[in-house]
């Protein structure tokens, strides 16, 4: 692609990855499918493990292709458990390396940050890896004791 030209297939491909997750009920572009500024997936609160309250948790994905390291934010928020977490690769927290994971449970006053290294290099595989970690490990580990 020409330098500076955005690749419209990026968000279309990431939307497909989100739609394939068992916990996801719908995926929409925000603020609409014309502007496509980011993706927002609604999560079925009864399909996550452990099940959470009546409100639907949300998973948001912002992504920009910027070689050699893309900039992205993958954020999960569960209003029932007051739990937030996210994988960010941006210029924040350079001390932790290119990417970091952050989370905050209801009892924490400030988020905790950890360095993270991904096996995947391409956006759809990386998003898949994060979803797998989120639903298999992160949610059970951090909201399980509630």
């Amino acid at each position, binding site marked *: 692609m020409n330098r500076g030209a955005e690749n*419209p297939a990026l968000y279309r491909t990431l939307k497909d990855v989100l739609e394939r997750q068992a916990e996801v009920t719908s995926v929409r572009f925000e603020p609409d499918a014309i502007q*496509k500024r980011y993706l927002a997936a609604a999560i079925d609160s009864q399909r996550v493990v452990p099940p959470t309250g009546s409100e639907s948790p949300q998973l948001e994905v912002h992504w920009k292709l910027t070689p050699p390291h893309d900039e992205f934010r993958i954020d999960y928020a569960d209003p029932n458990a007051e739990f937030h977490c996210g994988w960010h690769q941006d210029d924040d927290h350079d001390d932790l390396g290119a990417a970091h994971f952050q989370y905050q449970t209801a009892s924490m006053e400030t988020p905790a940050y950890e360095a993270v290294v991904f096996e995947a290099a391409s956006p759809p*595989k990386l998003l898949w890896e994060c979803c797998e970690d989120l639903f298999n490990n992160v949610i059970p580990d951090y909201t399980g004791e509630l």
Partner: protein
Amino acid sequence: MSDEPDRSWTNGLSAADRVEAVALTVGKPRTANWIAEEAEVAHETATKYLTRLVDDGTLRSDTRGQQTTYEPDPVGQYLAEMRELYEEHSPDELAASLEDINEQIRTWKTKYDVETANQLRASLGRTDDVTDERNRRQAAREWDHLETRRRLVEDALRLYDRFPGERRSASA
């Protein structure tokens, strides 16, 4: 845990879907080897699907010496996006969204006293406030994105001038 369902990348997507997803999102041209490794398929499998995607205009390839690289075909991707905007949105929706985009860009221009996203980027070194710097960086990123979307929406509206009333998914 052993009772966890296998939700791995290779179990969730077919080989063809993985090759296409990886090839469509490369940040720079990549070899079939690189794509095969990411997609977790054999080299021959990747080459088979990549050739098919080049043939239908989804990807383009470039061969130099022994090496062939692949990336999204810019014309193919532009046309796919144009078709989607034309078929799924009325001219009124497109015009309303265009106005939202212009309004957002005007807001950034006023707020940061700059004319372009690059001028906003150039201002990053002049602020000591970490939060302000982060907001500026994020705004510049979003600004680039909206400039791209604006050009696409303008082109889609021109498509309506040329083909008025021929939209297939008539929701209006």
